[in-house]
Structure formats: C-alpha cells, structure tokens
C-alpha cells in the first residue's frame, strides 16, 4: 500500500495499514462471536463462586461499604498501586506517610473484611515533574521496596512524557531490577498509544524482562503491540475514560485470555469497585469459558504479581496461624481452615442505620 491511502468508508478519515489491520481483526472477531454467542441468558442466581483479585484498586479512597461489597462479590485480594492523590503532594513527608499508609493501615482495614491487601511502591509520573520532590521520593523508595506485601514497583510511566518523567521512569526501572520487583506501568491518558510504545521502548532499553511487567490502562488501540512485545496487558474498567465491560469481554473473546488482566482502578473518581466482578459476570453471559474468565480476573494477576513471593494464594486459602491471631482476629473474620468470607454477610441497607 506504499504511497497510497485508504479512506474510511464512514468518516472518510485516513486508514493507515495498522488501523486497517485492527479493523480486519474486529470484523473477524464479530463473525466468530455471532457463531459462538449463546444469547444473553438471565444472571445466574447467587454470588459468583469464583475468586477474584482486583490488581489495581486505590482502596484508601473507598468506603467500608465498598470493602463489604467486594468481599461479597468474591474479591479475595486487592493490589493498591502508589499513585497521586488527586492533589499534588507538597513535600516528601506526605509521600512517606502515604507509602506507610498503603503498606500499613490500609492492609489492616482490608483485613477486617476478609480481603488481602498488597501494594506497589513508586513515584508516579505526574509528581515526577516536581523535580525537588521527585529526588527526595526516589531516595526514600528503597526503604519501602522491601516491605511485606509490596508486589511491584508502580505506577511508573508517563503522563505528559516530559524529560523529568523520563528520568524518574528510568531510575525506577533500575531500582526494580535491583530489588527483584515486577513493574506496573501507568500508560498516559493523553497521547496514549505513542506514550505506551515509548514506555515499552524504554523498558527494552533498560533490558527489563517483559514477563515481569504489566502495562496498564490499555484499550483496543494498544493491546496488540503490548501483547506482541510479551508484556502482561491490563485493562481498567473505568466508566467513560478507559475501558468498559462489554468492550473488555469482546477483547478477551478476540485475543484469548493469556496475559490479559482486568482491574477496576477504583479511586476517588466515578469508578466501580465491583467492575471486575461485573465484567466476569458479563463475560460468562456472553459465553466466555470459565477457565478464560478465571485467568483474566484472578490467575494472570496472581502469576505476575506473585513473582517476588509477596503475594501467594495460600494467604487467603490457608492463612498463617499468626495472621489469624492478629490481622484477622481469629474469631471474627477467618478461622483456621475456613475459606475466605465471600458469602453473604447478612446485612441490608436498613441495617446500616445507627441506632
């Protein structure tokens, strides 16, 4: 097609060879779906029986109602990535307190609801642009990288793709290598595709193993390259801006479940801590096999975020005796040999009245 351009039949925009290839993929997928789709049956009664990991959830912004609902929906573990707080921090002290909080109090809070809490530690790209702050934060990172429950460095990456962001990213990739940690990459909201490709180029330059790295917040425009280059490819089911359940289900049907990871990215914005559970349900309705669903809402996240040994299925299937005596209080949430509390907690909205 060299020297020639294809025009899109509906909008008359330019169709590059890459876009055309993606369109063809989409057509192929729709055809397959039509053949395989069993029709939209009613939702199966009762809570999902499968376990769910939400590997991207900013729980410090969420309420106890959310924790209860997540536990009820089958969420057994969450990963809280270090990010900004909606408002920039003005000094390294508040950053240190934040790291301490997501590896301290928030773990305790989650435990009260029978949910295991892990986190990632890192300087996010937005705040990397505050040069003085960034240097101090990077100096403080090693202290937290060895903490229990830290499963990766993250969220690292680009926001506006500035040189300061680039510097912070590169320094932290080296830290992740030094400390044997996987990386969670935040891909930019604006200029996403180019930013995603650039991030992967930088990771390659630093010789970072793609099988130890999750590229997050993907969409239809980025999935192919991310998978082709061997990375784990995560999607945030975040209303309006990132990805929806229907589109997510279509991607799993089209690309298969290998190396795809679904998360809610729930935070202080309009977002849904049940997004992973709802997407799993939708996929089941659309006829996606249960093994495939299990991979994208549980197994894949466990495989990559379990790499440094800090997150293990045994933590929720067979908790250590010491945790049952302390974090899980032994007699209130979990007892020895019991399965996690994912069943009906037996409360209705009316029960929440303070009498």
């Amino acid at each position, binding site marked *: 097609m060299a020297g020639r351009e294809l025009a899109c039949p509906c909008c008359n925009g330019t169709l590059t060879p890459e876009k055309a290839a993606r369109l063809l993929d989409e057509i192929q997928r729709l055809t397959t779906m039509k053949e395989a789709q069993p029709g939209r049956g009613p939702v199966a009664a009762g809570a999902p029986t499968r376990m769910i990991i939400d590997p991207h959830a900013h729980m410090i912004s969420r309420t106890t109602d959310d924790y209860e609902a997540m536990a009820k929906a089958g969420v057994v573990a969450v990963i809280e990535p270090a990010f900004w707080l909606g408002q920039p921090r003005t000094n390294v002290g508040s950053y240190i307190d934040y790291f301490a909080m997501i590896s*301290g*109090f928030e773990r305790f809070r989650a435990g009260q609801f029978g949910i295991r809490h892990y986190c990632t530690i890192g300087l996010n790209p937005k705040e990397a642009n505050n040069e003085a702050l960034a240097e101090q934060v990077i100096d403080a990172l*090693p202290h937290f990288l*060895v903490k*229990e429950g830290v499963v990766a460095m993250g969220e690292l990456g680009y926001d506006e793709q500035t040189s300061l962001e680039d510097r912070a990213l590169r320094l932290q990739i080296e830290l992740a290598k030094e400390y044997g940690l996987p990386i969670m990459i935040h891909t930019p909201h604006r200029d996403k595709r180019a930013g995603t490709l650039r991030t992967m180029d930088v990771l390659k330059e630093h010789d970072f193993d793609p099988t130890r790295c999750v590229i997050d917040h993907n969409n239809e425009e980025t999935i192919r390259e991310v998978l082709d280059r061997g990375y784990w490819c995560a999607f945030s089911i975040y209303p309006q801006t990132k990805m929806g359940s229907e589109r997510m289900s279509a991607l799993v049907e089209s690309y298969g479940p290998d190396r795809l990871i679904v998360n809610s990215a729930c935070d202080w914005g309009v977002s849904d801590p049940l997004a992973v559970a709802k997407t799993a349900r939708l996929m089941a309705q659309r006829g996606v096999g249960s093994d495939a669903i299990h991979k994208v809402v549980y197994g894949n996240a466990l495989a990559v975020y379990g790499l440094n040994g800090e997150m293990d299925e045994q933590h929720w299937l067979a908790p*250590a005796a*010491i945790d049952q005596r*302390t*974090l899980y209080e032994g007699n209130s949430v979990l007892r020895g040999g019991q399965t996690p509390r994912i069943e009906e907690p037996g409360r209705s909205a009316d029960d929440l009245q303070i009498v």
Partner: protein
Amino acid sequence: MQTTTLGAAALEAIRGLFDDWISRSVTVPAMEWYRRTIEELRHVADATQLAMAIGTAPRRLGRSDLLLTAEDLERVRTLRPNFDPQYLSVDQLARIAFTVASYRGDDGAFASWFDKFCATAGINELIALCRGLPVYPAATLLEPRAREAVRSGMKPVFEAVVHYSPYPAEYFAEDAWNHMVVKAIFIGSSLWPIQSLDQRRNAHLARMLVDLALERWAAGRPVSAEVWRCVASHADAAGDAALVRAFETGGDKDQLAVALALQQGAEDRVDLLFEKPGLREKVRQLQSRLISERIGWEALA
C-alpha cells in the same frame, strides 16, 4: 513501677535462646541467612540493611509458629522476668532479634532509630517490633513509641504492646496505664491477657470504667464483664451502684464477673452492697461456683 534493665550478659543469653528457637522451625539455608544477618547487624550493618533484614524476614524464614516448651519459657523468664513469647511466629521473633542485634551500646541512637522505623513500619513489622518491647535495651526511652502504638487505630498493633507483655505495667505511668485499659474495653479487646492488671488497679481507672459502662448502658449496648475486675476494689458510690446494676440486670457471665471481682478485690463489701437477701445469697452461690468450676477471667471475657 519496677522496671527491668537488661545487661549485656542477659542480652547475649537471650540471643542464644532466640537462635535455638528459630532453628527449630526453619530450613538450613534460612537459618544460615538468619545467623549471617545477626552477625552483620551486630558489627557492620547500617540502618538500610537493618530495614532490609526486618522487611524480608517473613520471606526468608516463613511465618510458622514457634515451637516452645515450658522449659523454654522458664529459661527466658529467668533472663527477662514475665517475657511471654509463646504466641510469636518465627518471623516476628527474627524481627525482634534483628532489632536487639542492631544495638551497639548507644541508648539514644537505638531509641531514635526505633522511633523512626516504627513511624513507617508495615503493619506486621509494627506488630512484631511492639511484641519485642520487653527485651530491648534502652526500654525507658522507647516509652513514647509504645504509647503511640497504644494510640493506634489498628487493634493488633494495640494488642502487640498491651497483651502478654510485662512492658506496660513496668513503664507506663498511671494516666497512660488507665487510658490503655479503658481503650482495651472501648475497642472490644480483652483485659485478661494484660499482665499485672490487679496490681495496677486504681480509683481513677475505676471511675473511668464506670463512666464507660454508664455510657454503654445509656446507648443500650452491652458492657464487657471484665470491666468489674478493675472497679470492685476501688469503687466509689457510683461504682457500687454500677456493680449492683450489672449484677441485677446482667446475664450469667456478668453476674459471675461481679461475683469474682468482689471475691478478689472487695470481699468484705458484699453484704453492704447487696442488701436484698435474695441477691446476697446469689452472689455467695456464684462465688462457690467460681471456685468449684475454676472459672477465671479468661472464661468471662
């Protein structure tokens, strides 16, 4: 308050016991790591290496429970009276041992490091470090950090300082002690695992607990039966009224608790408090039952 100062010889002996206990529960390579780390911390390691050792202890050693015998407890208590390590896990003991090993004779430096580390510790690190308070050097200087942990919103951190430990009774002044006991009741924790509870009862504490009981009754909420243990011996008129009310309105456990509290702290006032003959007999009857059935505070919590 009778404090305990651990000399170099005692610390060395305790280090030997910890080594023995940990070696029973971990693999040979894990034990090699532990011993190497202890030596590094004693002689060359800096704060970053100490943080690394404490942070990675569970990954290296696992988190199984210690396997301690009655003789183990006896031996450690001859070195450090009332130390109670029986509910510790391997990683917790290792974290405590690393902390002790990092002490190089400078109390101020040790206390300053401890305070700074606790401020950013992960929850399990904080629990382990607080459980170790009885065996640290410079124990007096650690009191502000211990009190900070008692202020924690995390119940297991609170309990790590408060339960199964001689530290609070030895180092907390009366106000700190009283708030600790009241908080235990307030957050739904237990009093019975607190050491020296009876020895440190006082009128101010009794008054605060009675106020808490009245508040709970006003809200239609239950009152922990353990409260009366710290009230009976130091009750004022309001305390006496509360004891009678708890007995008259409470269930079997509450009645047993009031009877036990009186038996242990105010036996001579039973007749005075319970003027109605039926009630007085009931108290006596329950007190006999407490003895014959060997019911203690743990059963009434």
